[in-house]
């Protein structure tokens, strides 16, 4: 990639990235579960300046009908970017890019969901990027996993996701905008933390096998940190529910 007008002179200055982070440091991460009352489950997530919103509906009746699967739930993820989420206004509606991202997100989440518990139903995951500053698809997956859990949909595990890459020959975690635009490689990854099963892997750029190995390890470690934030967000929302459930568990009233 050559230098474009507007490209920064350097992405790494005095051993630090342009936003002051260390190479293996995540941007500040805030996760909140249960932000859309109408949805069965929802999540808002902020990673640096990237903001995503996820609403989950399901399990519910299948629509369109032809998507019905007899022995499990159909899963559909729709990823979109709000018109004002990018520097240049994004035209509303799906693009080839957003359609592909929708599909890889579904592929990243499906292994974690016990789809077979919900035959002949549909689980809809609606994702909207409200402010984009790189890492949107991985932020979307992280938030969607929280939203699915918030909806009470049975899952084997959560899914945590992050992107890592190479900038000026250095391997770094969680690329933000200038690094994503002007770096040498970008590799989004998603993982189910319990068994470290990888459910999303994409890469574009130029990496040696050794670099890939290091990036995968860096990302998996970061996913564990992200998982702790997901867990905390969910426990924060549900922490107070236990007292009422205590009464029910005691006398088994139904």
């Amino acid at each position, binding site marked *: 990639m050559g230098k474009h007008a*507007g490209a920064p002179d350097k992405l790494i200055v005095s051993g630090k990235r342009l936003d002051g982070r260390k190479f293996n440091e995540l941007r500040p991460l805030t996760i909140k579960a249960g*932000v*859309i*009352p*109408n*949805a069965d489950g*929802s999540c808002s997530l902020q990673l640096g*300046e990237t*903001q995503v*919103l*996820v*609403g989950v*509906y399901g399990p*519910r009746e299948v*629509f369109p009908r032809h998507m019905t699967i007899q022995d499990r739930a159909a899963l559909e993820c*729709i990823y979109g970017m*709000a*018109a*004002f*989420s*990018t*520097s*240049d*206004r994004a035209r*509303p*509606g799906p693009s080839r890019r957003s359609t592909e991202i929708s599909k890889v997100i579904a592929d990243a989440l499906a292994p974690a969901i016990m789809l077979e518990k919900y035959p002949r139903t549909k689980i*809809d995951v*609606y994702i*909207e990027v*409200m*402010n*984009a*500053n790189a890492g949107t698809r991985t932020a979307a997956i992280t938030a969607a996993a929280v939203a699915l859990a918030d909806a009470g949909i049975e899952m084997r595990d959560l899914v945590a996701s992050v992107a890592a890459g190479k900038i000026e020959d250095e391997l770094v975690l969680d690329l933000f905008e200038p690094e994503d635009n002007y770096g040498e490689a970008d590799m989004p990854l998603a993982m189910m933390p319990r068994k470290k099963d990888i459910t999303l892997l994409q890469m574009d750029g130029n990496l040696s096998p050794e670099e890939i190995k290091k990036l995968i390890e860096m990302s998996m470690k970061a996913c564990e940190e992200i998982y702790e934030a997901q867990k905390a967000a969910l426990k924060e929302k549900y922490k107070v529910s236990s007292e009422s459930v205590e009464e029910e568990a005691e006398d088994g009233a139904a």
Partner: protein
Amino acid sequence: MEQLKAHIIALLEKGKRHDGRDAMDYREVSVENNPIPRANGSARVKMGNTEVIVGVKLDVDVPFPDTPEEGILMVNAELMPMSNPDFEPGPPRAEAIELSRVVDRGIRESSCIDFGKLCIKPKEKVWVVFVDIYPINDDGNLLDASALAAITALKNTVFPKYDEKEDAVLYKELTKKKMELEFIPILTTFGKVGGHLFADFDLLEQHSMDARLSISCLPDGGIAAMQKGGFGTFTEEEILNLVDLAVIKGKEIRKLIK
């Protein structure tokens, strides 16, 4: 649904709503400024559980041939499926288009924006103001929440630098120039069911009501735009009554914008 409608009408007979409000009470309304850094101006409005985010993006383009010295306003609404279980993904349908056009008229017809001031070079370059409306949760009355968020987002809008030589908008460089609004128009929408009128309906009331009337009013009591929706009807007396109420309610809501 019939039982719910009868219930709502019976309560309105005594001037009450099913959530305890009086007929003309709004729910709790809150306004948050600039939640979206990428937008040139933005706002989040909550009315009860209804939540809408509006972002303004500015661009530079050729003016329309019939208004060669005026900027352009484009309002769009995306009824996001996450906000309401009945919304389907896809291009904007009639409800989304009506919402965006009603909000548009409330701003445009009020003349709160001097479109001449958005002209950079007559016949060649003008500012285009995109207003994009995104409901996050629909608990009724998206019209008022969207209009309030839209006008607040416009009020918060700061112009990025426009490089005339390169004909490029430099989004990362902000100027000190703010969007000038001569005044703030406010949209208030009223519902009608069983002969009773009420303000700021929630989703249950919206499903049960026969008709709605939206009125955009100005601080001086003038009316900029109106829109009737739904299969029911209004009498002349009801309309005039609502126009008066719109001005009163508009004043209350206008105070929330800082």
